[in-house]
């Protein structure tokens, strides 16, 4: 057994609660975040069957304001920002001139004419720098609010009932942008009230289950976490770490930056061509020409792989078609929900059709794997 202790400096506003709960921590993009509280598998299953609560305060929140905020985002990002209605959100990307992915993002119009860009912790600096560079000439401003905001995700079939049962968390019609909690659509947001203060609640997540993400002032985060946890107890809500978050998102076929997404990848290779609305978006944006040109015909594409047994292919393991190397795994694990190994991999287009039989090199031995459609897991309703 080998182990390497990372020294990190950034701590979530909820850090002490995690310490008190006995969490184990991991370094994630310079943040010390809970990797698990007790059991990765128990946390994973809780989200699939009841609910889990995650601290994802390491994620970056960047506000975009000003008369030309939408116009600026149209230019800076792949999304058709001008078409995002008030209270709605879109999954998108910030691309470089070559169409490579600098980061994947969620953009909300969280108040009239105001946008909230949520970026990965590992890309906070490059996203802020990229936006700052692209804002020249637009009447718009960006503010990196990450350090003032905590982000709490409540995910699972009982997530809504838990929010409704949380003491002090109330609907606030004046901030709700026309929504109620029970009717809040997927990828929409509304303002709510927690003990008198406003917070933003999005119906978004990274687990493949119904759920919410709550953006709350750092100073109120601990109180909100405790209130949610108290309300969730009767439902079987458990605190979940990044380990469970990773297996949940993998089963749901959701990409992770640095694994499935990167500067050398065009969105269409990752199966995310739909994220760049070339047909409906008329505005120019950084990367547009490269996206229109598309990748080389033989550029590798992302697929799902399923195998039998218990040995999982993992990131960086090679994929073979007989003696020929045809790809590489970007994420893989023994699926806790399905009970067999699953992986996402970039493979040559000629072996990307579902049903294709391939082999994974697992530390020197080959295991059979079949190309399958993504996601591996889809909730029933």
């Amino acid at each position, binding site marked *: *057994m*080998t*182990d390497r202790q990372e020294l990190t400096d950034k701590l979530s506003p909820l850090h002490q609660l995690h310490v008190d709960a006995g969490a*184990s921590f991991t370094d994630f993009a310079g943040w010390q975040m809970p990797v698990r509280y007790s*059991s*990765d*598998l*128990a946390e994973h299953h809780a989200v699939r069957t009841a609910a889990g609560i995650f601290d994802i305060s390491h994620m970056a929140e960047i506000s975009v304001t000003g008369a030309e905020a939408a116009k600026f985002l149209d230019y800076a990002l792949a999304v058709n920002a001008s078409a995002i209605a008030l209270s709605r959100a879109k999954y998108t990307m910030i691309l470089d001139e070559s169409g490579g992915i600098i980061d994947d993002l969620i953009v909300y119009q969280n108040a009239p004419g105001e946008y909230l860009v949520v970026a990965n912790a590992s890309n906070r600096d490059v996203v802020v720098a990229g936006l700052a560079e692209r804002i020249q000439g637009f009447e718009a401003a960006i503010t990196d609010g990450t350090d003032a905001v905590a982000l709490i995700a409540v995910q699972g079939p009982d997530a809504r009932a838990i929010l409704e049962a949380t003491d002090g968390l109330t609907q606030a019609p004046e901030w709700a942008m026309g929504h109620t909690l029970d009717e809040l659509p997927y990828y929409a947001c509304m303002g709510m009230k927690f003990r008198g203060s406003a917070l933003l609640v999005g119906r978004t997540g990274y687990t493949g289950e119904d759920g919410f993400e709550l953006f709350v002032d750092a100073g109120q985060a601990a109180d909100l976490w405790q209130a949610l946890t108290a309300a969730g107890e009767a439902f079987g809500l458990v605190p979940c770490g990044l380990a469970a978050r990773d297996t949940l998102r993998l089963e749901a076929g959701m990409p992770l930056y640095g694994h499935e997404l990167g500067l050398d990848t065009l969105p269409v290779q990752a199966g995310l061509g739909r994220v760049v609305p070339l047909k409906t978006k008329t505005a120019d944006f950084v990367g547009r020409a490269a996206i229109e040109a598309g990748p080389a015909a033989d550029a590798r594409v992302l697929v799902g792989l399923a195998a039998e047994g218990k040995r*999982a292919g993992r990131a960086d393991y090679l994929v073979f078609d007989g003696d020929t190397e045809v790809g590489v795994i970007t994420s893989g*694990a023994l699926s806790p929900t399905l009970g067999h190994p699953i992986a996402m991999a970039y493979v040559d287009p000629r072996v990307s059709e579902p049903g294709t039989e391939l082999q994974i090199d697992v530390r020197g031995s080959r295991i059979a794997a079949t190309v399958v459609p993504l996601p591996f897991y889809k909730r029933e309703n």
Partner: protein
Amino acid sequence: MTDKTELKYTAEHEWVLVEGTVATVGITAYAAEKLGDIVYVDLPKAGSTVAEGKVVGEIESTKSVGELFAPVNGTVVESNDAVAASPELVNSDPFGEGWLIKVEFDALPALLSFDEYTALTGE
């Protein structure tokens, strides 16, 4: 109940129980905790020859893969079939039912004491 202070340890987080010329080997609670939920173990079969410091098995969790190093030179006399069938035993009882292999050895190398090992992990 195994008395952890009586066991020997390696810097790779194995524990070793010496009884005569047979060493029972497992991984420590510290190692199991770091790995997370263990879902698969690959252990050498009885009769295999193992060499001190060499990788002889793998311990996989949902998150990662840990390697099992042989703490002694010798021959495997038994590997734990119960753990192969129920890898979670390594998490629930790492010093007991979660043992991994028994190795018949000729000479015992220098191993860490309990105090030396706990100084290493800082726990």
